């Protein structure tokens, strides 16, 4: 555990000291301010629009940050050979990978939390979001970011090209919003091969279509059962991606 914590610490420091993190956070604040201005056009739905645009901005910035950072996370240390020195110390490769991933997630989460606090304060000033649904919506966005981070890490280790890994990550993120459509098509398909392929793909890609508190919260019907299932889903999906990443990383020679 100490080795994971040590790697987590240095990863978090590395990201927060990097200009990219600061630029992302500042850009996020700019987007939030833009949302405040744009929401004035929504008349009676100003608070709703401020909420939606702000959370969308926070999620988008979080997503872009996590994909960029995790794709470069290990590949850059391999390229700079800093990974040599780490792995010549008594640390298991799985611990190294986990520490790096959690440190990156913490850095992105810190940025998202800072933006979330500012955003929530703005919304409260306008009289909205007094209940816990904001936290649930933010948590779901963070869960999405965690899943994409784990997936991007796996892609970067498997594909070894940063550009290809980022492109694939974005593609899978978009595809993840169509799982409902894929399952619908699978049900209606007459061809067993097509049905099997669509079903497999719809379960292999992250199921973002059903994991979106942000889009569903105005309806006010998100249950505790759904939230618990969603939390388990994030844990399971991230763990699966990380375990596969360990499998790939263990085989790597430097």
């Amino acid at each position: 555990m100490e080795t994971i914590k040590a790697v987590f610490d240095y990863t978090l420091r590395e990201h927060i000291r990097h200009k990219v993190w600061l630029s992302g956070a500042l850009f996020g604040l700019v987007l939030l301010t833009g949302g405040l201005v744009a929401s004035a056009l929504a008349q009676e739905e100003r608070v709703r629009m401020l909420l939606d645009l702000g959370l969308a901005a926070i999620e988008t910035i979080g997503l872009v940050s996590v994909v960029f950072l995790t794709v470069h996370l290990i590949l850059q240390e391999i390229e700079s050979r800093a990974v040599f020195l780490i792995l010549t110390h008594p640390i298991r490769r799985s611990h190294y990978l986990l520490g790096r991933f959690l440190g990156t997630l913490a850095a992105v989460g810190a940025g998202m939390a800072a933006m979330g606090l500012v955003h929530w304060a703005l919304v409260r000033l306008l009289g909205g979001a007094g209940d816990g649904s904001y936290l649930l919506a933010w948590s779901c966005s963070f869960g999405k970011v965690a899943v994409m981070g784990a997936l991007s890490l796996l892609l970067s280790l498997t594909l070894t090209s940063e550009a290809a890994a980022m492109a694939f990550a974005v593609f899978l993120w978009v595809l993840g919003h169509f799982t409902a459509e894929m399952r619908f098509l699978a049900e209606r398909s007459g061809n067993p091969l097509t049905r099997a392929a669509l079903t497999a793909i719809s379960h292999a890609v992250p199921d973002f279509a059903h994991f979106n508190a942000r889009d569903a919260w105005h309806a006010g019907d998100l249950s505790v059962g759904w939230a618990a299932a969603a939390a388990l889903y994030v844990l399971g999906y991230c763990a699966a991606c990380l375990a596969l990443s360990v499998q790939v990383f263990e085989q790597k020679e430097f």
Partner: protein
Amino acid sequence: MRPTRALAAAACAAALALAADVPMSALARSFPPLSELPRTPLIFQDVAFASAGLRAAGADLAWVQMLQYAADGLDVFPGDSGYDHIKELSQRVTRLDPSFHRAYLYAAGILGWFHGVDRPNEALDILLEARRLDPGQKLYGLYIAGLAYKKKGDSERMVALLDSAYDDPQTSSIMRTILANIHQERGEYDKALAIWEDILEHDRDKTEHGRARVQIPKLEKLIRERASKRQ
């Protein structure tokens, strides 16, 4: 972690994710599929937002564009006159996010009761779709009943129904102004004046404050004239 252990861990975690996905997808709110999005010149915008998992934000933007259209500020429909496309524009909003009740009610109000529009069948289409997607919202049923009374020519009952929805948070400002105009047409100047004064007092109806400032002196004058005629 040895390679075989890593694979076993991945398999267990994947099984957990798949198992959790079953209740998660069963309990999640379902949205209308993308194929039901109206074919407007702005469809790519709608598809882009939906594909990015930003339906609520996309619906908000579509709502702003609908307001701009109603105020004659959106030029995407060549040859459009008046409110030809208000129904499609409202459906952009609601098929991205069916819980955006105000969009249905706003469009139905304009189509059903706005001067010079008078398209109650389209208003009814919108409200029936709204009620199908969200049967719990009582205003849909109320407006449907209001339209039915209007068609029958029973303006007493229609006005009573619309009056009962006046203070509902989902009632749009424009619907309040429509109600004020209906009262004015029926010669109920006191009621019309009370509504305009109420509109002017509340921030929620800020967009109609300009019209309220114009209507209030007119109605005060009409009330004075009537009073002096009676004398």
